[in-house]
């Protein structure tokens, strides 16, 4: 698949949150305010692209030659955890303002299913190094898009009257459901029309 195809697929057609349900915990948890949603989104893009590249390298260069592919779950989760720690340390050193913006979200990302998800999906789809990297960025962009749209809707919703039992999480889920309904317009046929 072409790189543009991968980007369109992961941002719109297979949007991680709205069609694959990966990364829902931060999506519901951090989408109250637009500022924090943007911070979380960029942190996820950063970690996902790094993680898909790193896990690709470990899978192709270590696990496959040694014939120990069955260790992928364990090794991937450890790579992601180590990577998040590393990213955190590097950001503290290089750019304290960036750390201030992203810092609190980084530990949350370790147990974000979206990051392990993109690593596993990359392996299952037999992507090469650059394709995995692009898929990681695209899936992160899809996450950013969904969480930012969601947070703007939720900021509006805070000022509206919502029936008591629906306040907070339930209305957030129903909003997400309606967004997912809208995203159903993006399907494989659209990709075909766009790329021929």
């Amino acid at each position, binding site marked *: 698949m072409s790189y543009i195809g991968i980007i369109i697929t992961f941002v719109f057609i297979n949007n991680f949150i*709205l*069609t*694959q*349900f*990966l*990364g*829902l*915990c931060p999506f*519901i948890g951090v989408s109250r305010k637009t500022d924090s949603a943007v911070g979380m989104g960029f942190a996820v893009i950063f970690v996902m692209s790094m993680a898909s590249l790193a896990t690709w390298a470990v899978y192709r260069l270590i696990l496959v030659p040694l014939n120990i592919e*069955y*260790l*992928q*779950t*364990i090794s991937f*989760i*450890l790579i992601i*955890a180590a990577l998040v720690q590393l990213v955190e340390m590097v950001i503290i050193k290089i750019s304290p303002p960036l750390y201030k913006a992203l810092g609190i979200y980084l530990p949350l990302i370790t*147990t*974000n*299913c979206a990051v*392990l*998800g993109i690593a*596993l*999906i990359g392996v*299952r789809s037999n992507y090469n190094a650059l394709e995995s990297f692009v898929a990681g960025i695209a899936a992160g962009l899809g996450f950013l898009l969904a969480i930012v749209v969601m947070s703007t809707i939720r900021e509006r919703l805070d000022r509206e009257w919502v*029936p*008591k*039992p*629906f*306040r907070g*999480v*339930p*209305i*957030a*889920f*129903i909003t*997400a*459901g*309606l967004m*997912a*309904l809208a*995203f*159903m317009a993006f399907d494989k046929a659209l990709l075909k029309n766009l790329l021929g």
Partner: protein
Amino acid sequence: MFNEFTKGIFKENPIFIILLGLCPTLAVSTQVVNALGMGAGVIFVLLGSEIFVSLLKDFIPERIRIPAFIVIIASFVTIVDLVMQAYAPSLSKSLGVFVQLIVVNCIILGRAEAFASKRKLGESLLDALGMGVGFTLGLLLISAIREILGAGTITLFAVGSFDGVIRIPGLVSQPARVLALAPGALLVIGFLKALFNWLEMRKQSREAWAAEAAPAPSEGGAS
């Protein structure tokens, strides 16, 4: 002691009350059989990791406990993944990447960190069973709603001449298909969560009302 078991099913149900482990819940709840398979996998991983964490808690240094827990959990997830691929290939295929994603299911790390790393083996075992069963029941409820209304069927395991699919007359021909698709999952869990909130609120207001009303009869009796 028995309370450790039942709290996971009702009072602290991982899906509806503390909202943990949502990603797999929504993704695999398209068919009842998927919910059963996923539930079994999660119960096994929860049991295995809570037992191991509880046994090893005195040997794991405080600073590296989270990575250590993750390795324990990932080992059990790998076992589930391989066993499922070997003995239930069709189930493994329809659950897809979500079997391996059990490793990042917040329920498991959450219970290991919050419960098993502090308690004795027996309590951890009951906690794991309760949480696992609570998770499975929640998953079953969501998948039953989605499959019955969204496809008009209930898919179970195929046994003998029975193909494993129960068709509900009237619904099979005209299902509300949107519920079986991605948006349906989010809508169903939103409405269910609201229902549970409403039940909780009703219970609280009843208790408040009962507390207020309690002295009334004695007063009435006096006059």
